[in-house]
């Protein structure tokens, strides 16, 4: 039993005590049924494990994921900088299958029928659900950059903003680049997945150049008016560690590219690079959009923050980067993991005809490497606010590192090991 007698008394109100009794006495309906999870990333995999763990196996969980194993976006800039390999950031789904008895299906979901509560698979066939969880991450809006809106261009001008083959391919482009070359990274307007990561990538590529190709240069074409995260810490790291090596250009949204010449076009300028890395604008993963759930700005899913359930279609929950963010809440793997637990708790209550926890919390800790041996963090704590019906940052909590430091480079790796285990072990 998770609540002991002392906690009972602390709950205070009579109603609280009764809710606790109801939840523990076994007199209420137990959560059961079938939950289908689409996407095995930070959000989906966490939710799948926690649904099984918290229901003590009472809820059946099927997780549909297109990749054979999990590859982490956080830490993938270390692969691009040549410090780690793809193997170091890859984790198998075996424990989800054997230890937690999640049915992991390698496939793609192509359609959702909310009326029939069923999904269709790319390989053919369909599956019914009691509750559906979409954790599809982001998809890229290549049509916003016409020259990049075809497969050949996308094979040359990489995003490496989903970890996997593109991560390795971008690393190879950097290794193949001549000394004296230019690496340009284009950042879309916020919101996009993982705000500080483009600046971290600039650091780790600059670190590689400094050691192996000292005549080369990094140029950041930022679509935003200023650095979107950890601004002072990045500015200082660039000045201290990479003087003359990193050039930062704000208000430089890339509107088109010419793949033949590796040229990026901003509104008033053209920029030719030896390795051009364009992170396109993003929106909720296609399956979320196809499912017909309400979107905000035609891009992100509108959800109820008590349950992560769509505001328009019952029994469909959406997690992670695909969601319209709550105030100051960044799109990050850590936050998707937190949302996975919030949704798992809510879904188990709802499957047992109980309301979701009325006071959920979520917190974020996000590390960025300034070089292979030093890192910084930003963190925030969020609580549900009934007045605004969203998660709000807790005032006075959270913040950034005072300065880059070696201890946090070790903590960042400790963070990765622990969160991967929290999702997948």
């Amino acid at each position, binding site marked *: 039993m*998770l609540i002991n007698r002392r*906690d009972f008394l602390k709950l205070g109100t009579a*109603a609280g005590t009764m*809710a606790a009794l109801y939840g523990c006495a076994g007199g209420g309906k137990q959560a059961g049924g079938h939950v289908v999870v689409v996407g095995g990333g930070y959000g989906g995999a966490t939710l799948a494990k926690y649904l099984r763990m918290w229901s003590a196996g009472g809820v059946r969980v099927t997780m549909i994921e297109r990749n054979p194993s999990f590859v982490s976006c956080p830490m993938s800039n270390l692969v691009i900088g040549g410090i780690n390999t793809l193997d170091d950031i890859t984790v198998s789904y075996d424990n989800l299958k054997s230890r937690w008895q999640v049915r992991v299906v390698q496939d793609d979901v192509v359609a959702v029928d909310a009326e029939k509560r069923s999904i269709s698979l790319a390989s053919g066939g369909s599956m019914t659900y009691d509750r559906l969880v979409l954790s599809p991450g982001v998809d890229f809006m290549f049509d916003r950059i016409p020259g990049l809106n075809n497969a050949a261009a996308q094979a040359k001008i990489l995003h490496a903003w989903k970890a996997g083959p593109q991560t390795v391919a971008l690393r190879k482009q950097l290794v193949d680049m001549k000394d004296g070359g230019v690496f340009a990274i284009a950042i879309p307007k916020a919101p996009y997945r993982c705000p500080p990561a483009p600046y971290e990538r600039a650091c780790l590529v600059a670190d590689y150049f400094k050691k192996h190709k000292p005549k080369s240069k990094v140029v950041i074409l930022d679509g935003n008016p200023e650095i979107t995260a950890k601004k002072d810490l990045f500015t200082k790291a660039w000045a201290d560690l990479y003087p003359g090596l990193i050039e930062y250009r704000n208000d430089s949204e890339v509107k088109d590219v010419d793949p033949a010449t590796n040229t990026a076009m901003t509104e008033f300028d053209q920029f030719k690079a030896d390795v051009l890395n364009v992170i396109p604008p993003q929106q909720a993963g296609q399956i979320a959009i196809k499912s017909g759930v309400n979107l905000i700005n035609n891009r992100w899913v509108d959800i109820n923050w008590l349950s992560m359930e769509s505001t328009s279609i019952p029994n469909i929950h959406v997690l992670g980067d695909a969601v319209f963010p709550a105030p100051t809440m960044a799109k990050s793997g850590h936050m998707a993991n937190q949302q996975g637990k919030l949704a798992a708790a809510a879904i188990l209550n709802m499957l047992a005809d109980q309301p979701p*926890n*009325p006071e959920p919390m979520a917190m974020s800790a996000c590390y960025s490497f300034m070089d292979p041996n030093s890192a910084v963090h930003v963190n925030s704590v969020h609580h549900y606010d009934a007045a605004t019906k969203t998660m709000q940052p807790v005032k006075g909590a959270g913040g950034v590192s005072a300065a880059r430091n070696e201890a946090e480079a070790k*903590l960042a790796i400790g963070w990765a090991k*622990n969160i991967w285990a929290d999702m997948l072990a």
Partner: protein
Amino acid sequence: MKLLPALLALGLLAANSFAHAADPNLARDLAATCANCHGTNGHAVKGAGIDALAGTEKSKTLQKLSDFRSGAKPASIMHQITKGYTDEQLDLIATFFAAQK
């Protein structure tokens, strides 16, 4: 659990009684927000440099959290995180981890 029939008799278990009630799994849900770094149910990955919390005496965890919050114990990040939770929430979290084997 002898209270249950009495409460049922009083009609206090009606669904709308729960509207503003604390969730029966509140402590579990709060503690889960720590698990990203401190491991599922407080079982951190060994050798990863982050404290495991499972089975730690409640008073010890609470003291540590309070020292982080006041600044008495230096921290890289915990001084900022502890300020995001109320005393009651930290109490529930420390109680939950103390009960983990």
